[in-house]
């Protein structure tokens, strides 16, 4: 059971992700420079948060052209797990692993705070340790976090992707007042059709141990690597 974190120029949550994986699962996840990804095999790859390539052009657009992305495509096709957090989610969307696109937050400024999230789906290794409808709390920290979908994309829900997490209030109600950035349907995270690729704007690695609050994020990593342990992924 192996995990690794892909580092792009401008990534800045890479160490946090590696730390959280170790704390949550005991797995030591090395940081791997994006041009070296093809040489490292792992069951779980994490694209961490940050500002890859300075967010030039569009957040994630330039990292989506990295050789790491071809390696990630092979990884996913072979049954591997892929998690994109914040900028990592933006990269997954720009690279076409997940549908949609990001715009500036509708509030027009960078937003960093804790939000409530409703677990919309649990049939993904990453979400297997949550209950459907469960309300969890994780921090967000982004300026381009407004998730949008093209008309044709939204209609393919279920065929190409599933909604995984939605911004909600403390009682689990998905409503505009609880939406921090104007994302369509309050979408905070989506998986691909298989559930093996998860993109999420909130930061599970920043709330993955009791020191930082509810530790609600740790089950993302435990679910992913626990599933691998049970042999759904590529195996150790």
């Amino acid at each position, binding site marked *: 059971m192996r995990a690794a974190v892909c580092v792009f120029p401008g990534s800045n949550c890479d160490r946090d992700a590696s730390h959280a994986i170790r704390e949550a699962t005991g797995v030591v996840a090395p940081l791997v420079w994006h041009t070296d990804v093809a040489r490292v095999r792992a069951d779980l790859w994490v694209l961490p948060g940050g500002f890859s390539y300075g967010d030039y*052009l*569009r957040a994630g*657009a330039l990292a989506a*052209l990295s050789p790491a992305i071809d390696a990630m495509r092979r990884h996913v096709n072979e049954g591997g797990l892929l998690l994109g957090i914040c900028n990592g989610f933006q990269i997954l969307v*720009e690279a076409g692993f997940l*549908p*949609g*696109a990001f*715009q*500036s*937050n*509708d509030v*027009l400024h960078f937003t960093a705070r804790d939000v409530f999230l409703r677990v919309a789906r649990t049939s993904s290794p990453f979400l297997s340790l949550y209950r459907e409808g469960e309300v969890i709390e994780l921090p967000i920290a982004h300026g381009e976090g*407004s998730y*949008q*979908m*093209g008309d044709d*994309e939204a209609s393919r829900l279920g065929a190409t992707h599933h909604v995984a997490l939605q911004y909600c209030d403390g009682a689990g109600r998905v409503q505009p007042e609880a939406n921090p950035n*104007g994302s369509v349907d309050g979408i905070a995270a989506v998986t691909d059709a298989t559930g093996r690729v998860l993109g999420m704007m909130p930061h599970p690695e920043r709330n993955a141990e009791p020191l930082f609050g509810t530790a609600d994020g740790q089950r993302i990593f435990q679910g992913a690597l626990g599933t691998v342990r049970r042999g759904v992924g590529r195996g150790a």
Partner: protein
Amino acid sequence: MSRFGVRVLVSLKPGVRDPEGQAISEALPGIGVEGVADVRAGKVFDLTIEAPDAATAREKADVAARRLLANPVLETFELEMDRS
């Protein structure tokens, strides 16, 4: 090989929300410009392309725009060849 100038104009598709344009539009009365009903923000890229002919240069700019400069989910683009 010659050098060709190609301008790529990227705009949001009609109906796509534009927070930046909206903020600009709300700021305009502050400098005394009233009556601007709407602002849509976009991007301009001026490419200088080495190619044997204008058609080839345009093709390259088209690939650049489709694959990278514009996001097809939210944006459209136009190409303008430099006639100078």
